């Protein structure tokens, strides 16, 4: 692809950034990865995402696209011929978007964060809800290899980055996600067999160290 200039402003543990890395890798798009220091945001980040000043920011031929779900759909529409992420049928697309929205609200949302930021009853309630949401996703996956069917699709790309955070959640919450949701873990491991996923996700140990560090910084036990 001549004359394509793609830059990704990102932060290595961000599961939102991982979504975009996976999508770009699936489409085999070469891009420049720029690591942001979130305590000292670059002028470029502030200029390209003035409203939220958050990563990830995808800059395509100088034009910024913000918000990871928007970015993944943009990548799919700009480069439609390789590894399509959304199906062509409107109803199947609606189902994929619905579950993408579910993952965003329930798995990545503020409530699930309580699994590692709280203790006691609050943590137990957060764990219970988190597992219930993962089970709903298991139900949606059914017997398919991926949420996208035989290949990675939109929902796979939106959800799988969270797998890199599972170990941290398990250690903080003292539970086993695999025991509760074996099919989902099997799905995640299947995704990790793909380079586009395994090269986009950091090691679970590194994420755990990062979470441990965050807990110290924020004074969370």
């Amino acid at each position: 692809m001549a004359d394509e200039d793609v830059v990704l402003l990102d932060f290595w543990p961000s599961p939102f950034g991982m979504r975009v890395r996976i999508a770009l890798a699936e489409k085999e798009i070469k891009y420049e990865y720029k690591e942001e220091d979130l305590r000292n945001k670059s002028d470029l980040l502030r200029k390209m995402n003035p409203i939220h000043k958050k990563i990830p920011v995808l800059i395509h031929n100088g034009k910024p696209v913000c918000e990871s779900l928007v970015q993944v759909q943009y990548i799919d529409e700009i480069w439609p011929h390789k590894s399509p992420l959304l199906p062509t049928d409107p109803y199947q697309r609606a189902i994929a978007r619905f579950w993408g929205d579910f993952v965003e609200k329930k798995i990545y949302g503020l409530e699930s964060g309580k699994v590692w930021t709280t203790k006691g009853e609050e943590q137990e309630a957060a764990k219970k809800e988190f597992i219930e949401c993962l089970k709903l996703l298991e139900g949606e996956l059914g017997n398919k290899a991926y949420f996208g069917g035989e290949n990675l699709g939109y929902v796979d790309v939106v959800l799988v980055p969270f797998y890199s955070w599972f170990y941290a959640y398990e250690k903080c919450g003292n539970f086993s996600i695999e025991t509760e949701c074996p099919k989902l873990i099997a799905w995640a491991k299947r995704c990790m067999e793909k380079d586009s996923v395994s090269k986009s996700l950091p090691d679970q140990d590194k994420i755990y160290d990062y979470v441990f560090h965050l807990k110290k910084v924020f004074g969370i036990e």
Partner: protein
Amino acid sequence: MKWRTILSSKTMGDDEEVKVFGMWASPYSRRVELALKLKGIPYEYIEEDLSNKSALLIQHNPVHQKIPVLVHNGKSIPESLVILEYIDETWRNNPILLSQDPYDRAMARFWAKFIDEKILSTTRKVSFTTGKEQEHAIEEVTEQLKLLETEVKGKAYFGGEGIGYVDIVANFLVFWFGNLQEALGINIFSQHKFPFIFEWIQKQLKIDMVDECRIPKDKHLTYIQTRLAAFKSASK
């Protein structure tokens, strides 16, 4: 005001059956009706009592059990933004709600997310808090509305030349938001503070289908006041 229920018509196509499970005061529900009316799609409207949700609603949206839900030939689609894109992709007549250009589509989706995740979310805080917390939420939503306004400044519609996806998502500004601030006795939004959004609202009001999705003011004020009173007594 009686809400019309339009039974599914054969003029759309053979055996097309479209239903909307909604709630008259919900801006999310109104969006879906507006999109269908703009596209000229007849639908059956089912009013839900949110304090006593129907078995059918729960069947069509088991995950969230919320309105709105669109049911097209038996297929259920929940979540208003998902529904809007489904409507636009299924019925390709005018108005086309989302541009064909991927970058413009990305911008439209960005602003729709901003409206739902920021403006409407902060508006809920304004409604359900008091004192300093409410003051802070009012400042926050004012800033968010200012940001949204930059998107419509100098344009007839958020969509550019014609009504589009973001105009429909922003429909809450045409009736719902004004009613809410009157019920709360606050003044966030005025012509003076938001001249461009105000101009956009005047243009929206000239569209028949937008007017058909009007939330009746007196009924709405009573509804909000009842809800606030129930919330206050539950919080004691």
